[in-house]
C-alpha cells in the first residue's frame, strides 16, 4: 500500500472535519424569520424563536422607522420604504424592542435555548 504523506493525510482529515462541521451547522441553523412593519405596527408583534435565529425587519410604510432594543443591545439605522435590518439573536431570553421614531410601536421576541 502506498503511504500517504503526512501533510496530505492532514489535509484530508481537515477536509472531512470541515464537511462535518458545515453539515451540522447547517442542520442546527434555525429558519430565518421576517417581521413586517406596516401601518406603524410590527407584525407579528410577539414571537418565539430558537437561539441563533436571524430576524429581519422589513419596512413597508411610506414613513421611515427604526428598530431599537430596549436594552440598547442593537439599534438599526432609519429604514426607508422597503429597507430591511437583520439581527441574529444568539442569547436565550426576552428581547423587547421599539421604533425609536414612533415609540408607541413595540414588539417582543422570546429567544428559546
Amino acid at each position, binding site marked *: 500500500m502506498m503511504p500517504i504523506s503526512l501533510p496530505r493525510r492532514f489535509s484530508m482529515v481537515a477536509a472531512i472535519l470541515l464537511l462535518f462541521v458545515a453539515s451540522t451547522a447547517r442542520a442546527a441553523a434555525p429558519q430565518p424569520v421576517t417581521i413586517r412593519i406596516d*401601518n*406603524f*405596527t410590527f407584525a407579528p408583534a410577539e414571537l418565539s424563536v430558537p437561539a441563533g435565529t436571524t430576524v429581519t425587519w422589513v419596512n413597508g*410604510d*411610506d*414613513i*421611515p422607522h427604526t428598530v*431599537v432594543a*430596549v436594552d440598547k443591545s442593537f439599534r438599526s*439605522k*432609519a429604514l*426607508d*420604504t422597503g429597507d430591511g435590518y437583520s439581527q441574529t439573536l444568539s442569547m436565550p431570553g426576552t428581547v*423587547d*424592542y*421599539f421604533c*425609536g*421614531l*414612533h*415609540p*408607541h*410601536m*413595540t414588539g417582543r421576541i422570546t429567544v428559546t435555548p
Partner: protein
Amino acid sequence: MNDGEQPGGIGRRGALHCMVWAGTGVLWGLSGGVPRSLGLVGEAMAAPTSGFTFLQISDSHVGFDKPANPNALGTLQEAVARIGALPQKPDFLIHTGDISHLSKPKEFDDADQVIGGAGLPVHYVPGEHDLLDDGTGQAYRDRYGRGSQGAGWYSFDAAGVHFIGLVNVVDLKAGGLGNLGHEQLEWLEDDLRGKSSSTPIVVFAHIPLWTVYADWGWGTEDAAQALSYLKRFGSVTVLNGHIHQLMQKVEGDVVFHTAMSTAFPQPAPGSAPSPGPMTVPADRLRSLLGTTRVTVLPGTKPLAIVDTPLSAS
C-alpha cells in the same frame, strides 16, 4: 360661567379668534374654550394688520416622494411663494420640525434654498425626521442649532413676546410619547425665572405638547411638567406640528395649536388603522397643506392665529 372676561383685562378665551380659511374662509371664535364657527368670511379678512406677525411653517419633509405627494419640495416652494405674497411681511418664520424626510444633506440643502427664498429669519426646532443622520442629530445641530442648548432648545425675545423652542423628539422611550427630558425641563424652569407673568409666551416644539391621541404617540410624556412652569403667565401660545393637520385646544390661559404640513396630510386621530401619509385626490391635496400666521397686536394679550391652506385664493 363667564366666557373668559376677567376684571382688569381682556380674557384670553373670550378674545382669541382663530380664523381658518378654506375657499371663501371660515371664521372661528373661541368662547369659554369651545371653538364655534362664526360664519364665512370674505377677502376682507386678508386685510393687513398693524401688529407684529410671524409665520409658522411645519413638516416640509423635503425628500418625500411617495404617492401622498410625489413633490414635497414643490409644495414647500408654493408655501414660500405665498409667504412672499402676503400683504404684510411677517417678521420671521418658525419651522416646527421635519424639515427633511431622512436627514440627508441634499434634503437639508434643498429645504434651506427654498425656505431661504422667503428672505426672512427662521427659527427651527427639529422633528424626528431631522435626527436620522449617523450622528443622531449632529447634522441638524451643526446647521440649525447655533446658540442652542442640549439637543437644540433655546429662547429669544421679539416684540415683547418671549419665544421658547423645545425639542421633544430625542431619547424617546419604548411605549411612550414625545419626550422633553430632565435637563431640558430644568433649563426651561430657569429660563422663565424672573420673567413677568404679563409677558406673552410662545412655545414651539415638533410633537404636540398636549395629548392629541396617545395610541398614535401624538403627545409628550412630560409636557405637564413644562406647562406647570408656564401656568402663572397670562398668555401662553403653544405651536406644534407632527400631526399634519389643524387642531386647537384652550386650557385656561394656554392655547395649543397644531399646524398643517407643507408636504402631505395625515388622517384624523383614530380615523385610520395608523398615522402616516394620507393619499387624497390631487385636487384636494392643497386644501390640506398650508402655513399658520400669528399676529401680536400691541396692547392686547391674545395672539391671533390664521391658518392658510395652499389652495386659498
